[in-house]
């Protein structure tokens, strides 16, 4: 076996390696050459700080007792990352924009930079993380004990569990202080730490996969063999209650944890270098989780089958290689587990120490002394660093205390879930911060506080039951014997798994309080501003509204503040940069709203939004009044904007009305000119016969000496002309009525072929008179269309008569064919006349238009026939077209068949 000394030397060497790695990366990042450090790959790997020793050791333990339940811990975050586009992207965008430094800062910033909320969230985070750190201490302690059990005694070999745990906690505290609090970054990014975490992510993945491959394929004989042996050994695999309420509760908790755990928020949101890295992390992090859980079940089953009863399943990852005699692999696995524990402890304590120093220590210091910071340049920086170092030590001590008090009985996974449920109390407020504009600070504080109390009562407290008889008694009978308040059967809700019970009550009461109180309280001005910025972070170009009235402090006051918090160098750079943008020298910088906003954001990056706000408001006198003023100005601006939007809308309406009027006017004009044209055409048409009637009647009147023959001829001409006039007027009336839709007739089933025959018969004498042939082509069978028989005949007669009338060829003929195709009936009337000139084709169907080649003399039509025919056919849903007329004209009537 392995000696304790060797294990300790290797652990120390590993930590040293991490430190060098972090140091070098930090240096490279500062020089701006660490491009690789800001890659999506490193980002994804660092997010896998989610996989702690709970994953490394505890998942196998969980799989051994609850089989597939451990998967929920990893599928929950998978769902959140699959939906990165909605929550994570918005979180990252807001946090980068507002220089958010922690989950407490996020909530406080959204709810009007409330200091109270920040303190509450920080306290919950510290309490909630304590069991989680205890879990890591426990895992490291156990793993050291397991791997060195059989070895001979050495320097640390005879230490008991508690002392070992304390030693580990102390080492971790020292290490984290060295690691994470060497300086206060402008935006709380720790490139060195991230690089080390990414490295650890690779180590733990490779170690776990190595153990998995060794167990499954090396000694287990493949996954199928392991499964069959486990069944043969009588191990329950298909328990029915795995996928019940507990499964869902764990899915919700783990999904919430990936967002709310302080260390996850730190890595995923605060340390995010580029929002686009989420695209990669969205699928790469779930892949990492999948690989981490791939061998968990086989390892657990094989361990249960092979190892003697009573072995701790949490340590199968170590004991399986050890019992197979593969100490090298066992050592590697130990390093992997150590790696996963240290990465969690480092990031969690750094994140918590930032929260404690920014939200608890800073505000107290600010309030305690008004002359605070006069101690010189960088005074605040020093205070921040000191308070962070102290908080790290304090948090690890709390973790150790929990480890000590909660006894040694619980499995790793059970402890981890207590933490998850604790930080899940941030979830309702966080979701409200991102999406619900009307959530108020009172709602957020009340909801979170109630959730925290319920969690502490129903879950945190009972975790001490095994070591404290008082608490065990409390759980059994309730406080003062009130059964209704029993922690694990709250308000008489019994029969549930304690986890499901606690998660239900805490989240239900938390959310209800948040919603109800928010509905009954009002937001203050700053909250409204922040709510709008948060909810619409993608919609507007957010330039923060000034929260202070400018001019109430001089630029040198502001410079002084900046110096105190950011240190001389950074303050100098900030003002220099600002002056350069404004095009003035540094001494001429005005304390404008821009400058204040910029400064507040910069300060927020170091000490959190609430503290930065308090600090600046102590500098800017009369802050309350000026904020109200600013709000008033903002309201007025809003009103002006709304008013101008209304104006814009009205003028757009006016524009469109004017456009419509213009179009109507144009239509009227066109109609007017059509009417004029029509009138002049009508008068022209009427004038010709009228002229002849008048002249002939004048001759008859003035010339008494006319012979009878002549007199009779003249009278006949007058008669004919008046007939023609009547016919013309009839047709005009007819067309007019048709066009205006006045002449109604009833369309009915009509035998169209019969009507065609009738038209041909009527026209036959006229054709024969002209020596014309009527050719009847192929004809359709008897078909019915929806139409009016007489009107149909009128159309056909008109077409045939036209063909006869205007045919001047030496061997004139007209050809009539009909057919049915595609549910339409079609008649074509073709002649071999002069055809219709290209120029006339467009207007042949207009009123009073005749083919220009039509013989101008003799029996001219009124020029209305085709116009009327087309109207008639249209009223029967058909069409009348001129097909082609290169030689002769061809007209086609198409009518839909009756179904």
């Amino acid at each position, binding site marked *: 076996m392995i000696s304790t000394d060797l294990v300790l030397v290797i652990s120390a060497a590993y930590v040293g390696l991490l430190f060098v790695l972090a140091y070098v990366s930090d240096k490279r990042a500062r020089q701006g050459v660490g491009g690789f450090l800001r890659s999506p790959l490193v980002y994804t790997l660092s997010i896998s700080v989610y996989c702690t020793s709970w994953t490394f050791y505890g998942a196998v333990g969980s799989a051994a007792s609850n089989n*597939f339940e451990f*998967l929920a811990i990893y*599928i929950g975050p*998978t*769902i*959140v*990352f*699959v*939906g*990165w*586009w*909605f929550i994570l992207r918005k979180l990252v965008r807001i946090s*980068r*924009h507002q220089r958010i430094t922690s989950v407490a800062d996020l909530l406080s910033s959204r709810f009007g930079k409330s200091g109270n909320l920040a303190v509450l969230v920080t306290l919950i985070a510290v309490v909630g993380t304590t069991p989680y750190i205890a879990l890591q201490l426990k895992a490291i302690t156990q793993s050291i004990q397991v791997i060195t059990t059989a070895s001979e005694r050495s320097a640390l070999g005879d230490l008991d569990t508690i002392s070992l745990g304390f030693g580990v906690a102390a080492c971790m505290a020292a290490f984290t202080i060295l690691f994470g609090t060497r300086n206060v970054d402008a935006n709380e990014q720790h490139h060195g730490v991230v690089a080390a975490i990414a490295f650890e992510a690779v180590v733990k993945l490779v170690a776990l996969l190595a153990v998995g491959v060794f167990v499954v394929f090396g000694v287990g004989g493949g*996954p*199928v063999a392991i*499964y*069959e042996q486990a069944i043969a050994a009588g191990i329950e*695999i*298909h328990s*029915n209650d*795995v*996928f*019940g309420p507990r*499964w*869902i509760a764990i*899915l919700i908790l783990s999904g919430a944890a990936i967002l709310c755990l302080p260390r996850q928020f730190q890595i995923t949101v605060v340390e995010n270098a580029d929002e*686009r890295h989420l*695209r*990669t992390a*969205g*699928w790469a992090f*779930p*892949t990492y989780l*999948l690989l981490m859980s*791939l061998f968990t*079940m086989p390892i657990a089953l094989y361990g249960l089958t092979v190892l003697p009863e009573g072995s701790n399943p949490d340590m199968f990852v170590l004991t399986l290689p050890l019992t197979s005699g593969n100490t090298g692999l066992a050592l590697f696995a130990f390093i992997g587990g150590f790696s996963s524990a240290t990465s969690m402890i480092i990031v969690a304590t750094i994140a918590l120490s930032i929260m404690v120093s920014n939200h608890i220590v800073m505000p107290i210091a600010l309030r305690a002394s008004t002359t605070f910071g006069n101690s010189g340049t960088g005074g605040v920086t020093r205070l921040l660093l000191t308070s962070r170092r102290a908080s790290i030590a304090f948090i690890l001590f709390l973790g150790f205390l929990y480890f000590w008090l909660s006894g040694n009985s619980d499995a790793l996974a059970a402890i981890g879930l207590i933490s998850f449920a604790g930080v899940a109390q941030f979830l309702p407020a966080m979701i409200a911060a991102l999406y619900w504009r009307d959530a108020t600070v009172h709602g957020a504080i009340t909801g979170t506080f109630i959730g925290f109390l319920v969690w502490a009562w129903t879950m945190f407290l009972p975790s001490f039951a095994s070591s404290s008889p008082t608490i065990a008694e409390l759980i059994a009978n309730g406080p003062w014997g009130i059964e209704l308040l029993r922690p694990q059967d709250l308000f008489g809700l019994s029969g549930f798994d304690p986890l499901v019970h606690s998660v239900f009550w805490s989240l239900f009461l938390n959310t209800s309080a948040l919603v109800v109180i928010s509905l009954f309280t009002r937001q203050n001005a700053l909250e409204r501003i922040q709510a709008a910025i948060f909810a619409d972070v*993608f*919609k*507007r*170009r*957010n330039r923060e509204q000034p929260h202070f009235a400018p001019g109430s402090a001089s630029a040198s006051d502001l410079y002084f503040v900046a110096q105190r918090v950011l240190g001389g160098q950074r303050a100098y750079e900030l003002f220099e940069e600002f002056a350069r943008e404004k095009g003035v020298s540094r001494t001429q910088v005005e304390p404008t709203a821009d400058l204040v906003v910029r400064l507040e954001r910069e300060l927020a990056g170091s000490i959190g939004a609430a503290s930065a706000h308090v600090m600046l408001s102590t500098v800017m006198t009369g802050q309350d009044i000026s904020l109200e003023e600013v709000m008033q100005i903002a309201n007025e601006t809003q009103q002006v904007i709304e008013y101008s939007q209304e104006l814009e809308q009205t003028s757009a309406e006016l524009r469109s009305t004017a456009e419509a009027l213009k179009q109507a006017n144009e239509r009227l004009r066109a109609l007017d000119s059509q009417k004029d044209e029509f009138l002049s055409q009508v008068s022209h048409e009427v004038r010709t016969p009228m002229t002849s009637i008048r002249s002939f009647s004048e001759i008859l009147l003035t010339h008494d000496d006319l012979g009878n023959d002549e007199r009779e001829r003249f009278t006949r001409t007058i008669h004919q002309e008046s007939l023609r006039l009547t016919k013309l007027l009839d047709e005009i009336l007819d067309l007019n009525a048709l066009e205006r839709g006045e002449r109604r007739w009833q369309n009915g089933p009509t035998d169209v072929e019969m009507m065609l025959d009738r038209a041909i018969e009527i026209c036959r004498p006229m054709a024969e008179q002209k020596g014309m042939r009527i050719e009847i082509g192929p004809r359709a069978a008897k078909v019915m269309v929806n139409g009016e028989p007489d009107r149909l005949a009128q159309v056909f007669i008109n077409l045939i008569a036209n063909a006869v009338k205007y045919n001047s060829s030496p061997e004139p003929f007209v050809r009539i064919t009909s057919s049915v195709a595609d549910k339409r009936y079609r008649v074509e009337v073709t002649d071999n006349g002069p055809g219709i000139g290209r120029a006339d084709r467009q207007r042949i169907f207009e009123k009073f238009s005749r083919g220009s080649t039509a013989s101008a003399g003799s029996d001219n039509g009124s020029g209305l026939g085709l116009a009327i025919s087309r109207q008639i056919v249209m009223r029967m849903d058909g069409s009348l077209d001129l097909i082609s007329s290169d030689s002769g004209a061809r007209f086609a009537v198409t009518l839909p068949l009756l179904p």
Partner: protein
Amino acid sequence: MEGRRRIETGALFLPIFGALLIVPPLVGVFNVPIAIFGLPVVAIYLFAVWLGLIVATAVMSRRLDRAERTVGSPPGEDRSE
């Protein structure tokens, strides 16, 4: 712009769909003592869903990226950071 909206709808649907696949009643259907390739069917189901979600997310992220690139910066988004 329409293509982008469609992808965003897909991006919303995917996690919801994924969540529905791994909670009762669907997951209960597979929690039966049947073995496929010698392994419990529920294990194969869960890992298959998991893998499917990963692949779908990768495809979706790529499309979102492409849609954003072709459309350019959507109006109102602050990219000056």
